[in-house]
């Protein structure tokens, strides 16, 4: 409990938030991994395989420099997108549209990345900026519809996702964007000046961790500050808690909804741009890879708190990297990772269940 106190002091959070943001997710994750391994045993695998799966899950995510690099690489876009979803949650908005916002942001980023020639830092900055701006613009549509027509953001964001998928397929086949000599939807590669630098390539060129992770951490701090220490953050939270009370108190709730939604899209757009500039180098028809949907889980696991999002993003990145090692050395299908992720969400969505199973972590009420 001493460590717990130290963490609380470091991040200056009160006890209730601490339980909410750290203890419940940790317990939910442990429980999900345990149940996942039990399912593995039930499906007829030997306990040696299950044990080896568990070990390789850890070894593959935190066991070496390259494992850690993969974990953080996978977590980077998740943290960006989940921050956006967390802002939405704070303002009472359930943004399902991160996937579409990633696609639009990433697509805009890739176009600027290969078509414009600029000096090194400037080009990268503009690529990221354009990615963020287009993500924000795409989410703005849902925010505006919500504020002025009352159209529910869940519906509009889902629909905009579908539109984004098809738009991507369409754009990737335009001769201006499509890679020369190919008939399938694949874009030209971004120029070297638009690439996020890889942080550890001096050790080993296979290490993929890039500067986008540092930007993601910076974004965590920034979002934390905006949500908890600015007027607009306060307005977001007020609107999220009770929109009628917020209106009565003089908050321009329409503006708050639009801004929160656009900020969410901005983060998702950055996720798309950082994938393009840091990892992929070009867009293909599936480049968003479900990150926008996984990010919803990350935001839920992080309890819509920026610090929580940082840790749960790293955890989901660890599951991706560790899952790979699990299939390579234990021969267990990657599908188990999907099961574990789903179980985490179930346990997170039912905090009472967690409190019943582990009563000694929680104060008696």
């Amino acid at each position: 409990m001493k460590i717990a106190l130290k963490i609380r002091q470091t991040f200056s959070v009160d006890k209730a938030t601490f339980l909410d943001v750290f203890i419940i997710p940790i317990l939910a994750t442990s429980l999900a991994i345990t149940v996942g391994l039990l399912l593995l045993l039930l499906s007829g695998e030997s306990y040696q395989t299950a044990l080896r799966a568990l070990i390789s899950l850890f070894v593959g995510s935190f066991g070496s420099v390259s494992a850690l690099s993969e974990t953080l690489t996978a977590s980077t876009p998740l943290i960006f997108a989940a921050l956006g979803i967390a802002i939405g949650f704070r303002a009472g908005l359930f943004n399902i549209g991160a996937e579409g916002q990633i696609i639009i942001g990433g697509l805009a980023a890739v176009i600027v990345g290969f078509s414009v020639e600029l000096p090194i830092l400037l080009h990268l900055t503009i690529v990221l900026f354009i990615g963020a701006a287009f993500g924000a613009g795409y989410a703005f549509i849902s925010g505006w519809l919500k504020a002025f027509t009352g159209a529910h953001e869940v519906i509009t964001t889902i629909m905009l996702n579908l539109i984004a998928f098809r738009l991507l397929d369409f754009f990737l086949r335009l001769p201006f964007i499509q890679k020369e000599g190919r008939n399938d939807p694949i874009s030209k590669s971004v120029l070297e000046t638009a690439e996020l630098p890889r942080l550890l390539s001096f050790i080993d060129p296979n290490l993929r961790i890039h500067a986008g992770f540092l930007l993601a951490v910076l974004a965590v701090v920034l979002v934390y500050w905006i949500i908890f220490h600015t007027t607009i953050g306060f307005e977001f939270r007020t609107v999220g808690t009770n929109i009628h009370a917020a209106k009565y108190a003089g908050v321009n709730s329409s503006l708050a909804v639009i801004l929160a939604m656009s900020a969410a899209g901005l983060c998702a757009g950055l996720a798309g741009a950082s994938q393009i500039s840091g990892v992929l180098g070009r867009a293909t028809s599936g480049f968003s890879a479900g990150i926008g949907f996984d990010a919803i889980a990350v935001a839920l696991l992080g309890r819509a708190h920026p610090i929580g999002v940082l840790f749960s993003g790293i955890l989901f990145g660890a599951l991706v990297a560790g899952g790979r090692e699990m299939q390579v050395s234990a021969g267990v299908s990657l599908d188990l990772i999907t099961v574990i992720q789903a179980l985490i969400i179930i346990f997170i969505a039912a905090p009472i269940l967690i409190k019943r199973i582990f009563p000694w972590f929680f104060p008696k009420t």
Partner: protein
Amino acid sequence: MKLKTILKLTSGAFAGLLLATVQSANAFTACQVTDVGGVDDKSFNETAWKGVKDAVAKHGVDSKLLESKDGTDYEPHLNSMVSAGCDIIIAVGFLMGEATQKAAEANPDSKFTIIDFAYDPTVPNILGQIFATDQAAFLAGYVSAGVSKTGIVGTFGGINIPPVTGFMDGFAWGVAHYNKIKGKNVQVLGWDPAAKEGLFTNNFDSLDDGRAFAQNLYDEGADIVMPVAGPVGLGSASLADELGSDKLKIIGVDGDWTTTDPARKDVYLTSVLKNMDVTTLSVIEMAKSGDFSGGLTVGTLENGGVGIAPYHELSSSVSSELASEVEALRKGIISGSIKMN
């Protein structure tokens, strides 16, 4: 004290297990990274994986597998296999072309082979395996034209890339050849080999799309459909299974679908075989014996790299005359006396 002892014991056990994992790496290990669609797709990935399983059974090599969930997995998956100390890494599919080249150039000591991708110029540590599937699909198109009662046959693909459209080209040319010889006018829906345009699901995993695309072609009058999209075709097969094979027949691709999907064996007229298992096995053998070198191998009708499956359950609908014409065509293509287009 007690806690420390437990920790020591467990860490000892963990180390033992880890050692066991490392030790198995001393033997020859063949590693495969599949494309999306999964290793149990009864088609593309499964056929390639069979080559590795055959090597395991025949030569006692070790095997490792990584299934890609998305196109973004290729690069990290290949890197994982490099760090797992694989002796040969098999990349399944055209879409992995660039990721494989990148991994091969960053790791010049590792050996790679890729299915469906030809590098120009070749990479010293990658052996590309490509297949003249148009030759085999030509035969399937000819049979289909002869068997079709409505005079309309159809095809659709996964993504508009050469390894997919090769099948569709051959199929359309085979039908055209039938029309020319017999003076008939059997139509092909879903692919225009001259314009290189046609029907594509734009994915390799949605069985729903497979069903919907086959339904569209059936509604347009097609009674034989060749889906070239891996497991997507299984959705088409389930439609044919419900309609009955007298209304809609399916032509499988990659493997012999009558044997990989025996539950619906009645609907498969034949399959266009792309024997990736045979070529993959021989690449593994080459790597094991030290004969591996980068470059290109091409599977053809002549060397058995491609072919068509027996007509199995539907052999009664293929007249013996038609069957012997197909056999003659096969020989004609091998000898070069028959030009496909």
